[in-house]
């Protein structure tokens, strides 16, 4: 996993994720929805990531699974970067 991407993902999460835990230290595979991220917060996370990385999530990635953990988000951003 790309550590600079991961760092940016964590900073977007701490701004937009409404997590009850610290987004900087939450485990990479922890379930963000269980950690307090509402569906509306996940939308703001998605929009925040698109701004930060200047990317657009393709429709097939607009699912809960994509935004479920730091790891899943980072992998998705990496994959979109490489497309």
């Amino acid at each position, binding site marked *: 996993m790309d550590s600079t991407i991961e760092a940016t993902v964590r900073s977007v999460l701490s701004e937009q994720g409404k997590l009850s835990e610290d987004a900087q230290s939450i485990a990479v595979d922890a379930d963000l929805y269980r950690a307090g991220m509402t*569906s*509306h917060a996940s*939308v703001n996370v998605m929009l925040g990531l698109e701004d930060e990385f200047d990317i657009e*999530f393709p429709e097939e990635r607009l*699912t809960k699974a994509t935004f479920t953990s730091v790891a899943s988000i980072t992998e998705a951003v990496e994959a979109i970067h490489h497309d």
Partner: protein
Amino acid sequence: MTTTDIEQDLTRQQDTFREGLEANDWLLPTLGDGVTGLGPQAEDVVQGIASAARGIAARLSPEAGTRRLRFPPVNGTRLLERTDYVASFPQLLGTIAAFEGDNKAHRQLLATYEEQGDWSAQLTPAGHALVPAVCHPLYAYLEGSQVDGTVFELVGECYRHEPSPDPMRFVTFRMFEAVRIGTPAEAAEHREKWLAAGTELLTNLGLEVQADTANDPFFGRAGKLLSAGQREAQLKFEILTEVYPGHPTAIASANLHEDHFGEAFDLRTADDAVAHSACFGFGLERVALALAAKHGFDVAAWPASVRQELGLS
């Protein structure tokens, strides 16, 4: 059939149905795009469905009881913000504008009006909005209170800005809703019971129906994510019937909101946890029209069992 063929087929079926409804005094024209009035038979059937729904509410009433409340079709614009409607469904909402100008502004308004210009652009927001869902005013009314699993029974108007030639799609329509706010288990139980009872009533009325998972029409790309989440978690079920063969239309829905409204309006259960809510709604005009499609426009000739279920004989 190609996609275009299927679409043309659907449009034809909608036109034929609308012409029948209008010719038989079921739908009455108005000056509003997508807005229709109802004739006497249609209104009798709407009242009959609402009354049958109240019968279900009485039968399913929980220990905490059932309260019948009434809210008007207009609420404060703030309601659309508090429910996240502005973020989720901006394409469907409607707000009210009013004239608040002085004499000079009035002269301008008259001039524009006499030139047949757009005088409405000179109005200002009145702070009022049309209610998009019958249960929304309830959460605002209960704000900050402790809830105990009481069921609330509501009939009211909804506004959705989606004018369409499909007579099943009303811009303004009535819903009967049964809403329960309490523990997660109480909300889930409510949804289950009403989905079963609603399906049973519609079946007894002679409709062929099917319940299926669904999503609300959340706006835009953000909406794609919200829709996917709603479907994955099976938060919304619709009861569908084929008014147009091959094209199911929703006539009722059963929704779990989890803690969305509990959080937004600070509703708490006795153990001080954020309350969960669920609502079940019949689209009253839609059910009435589905019955007309099934049994014909002459209600006197409908099967006796259906008339009886609706309290019409």
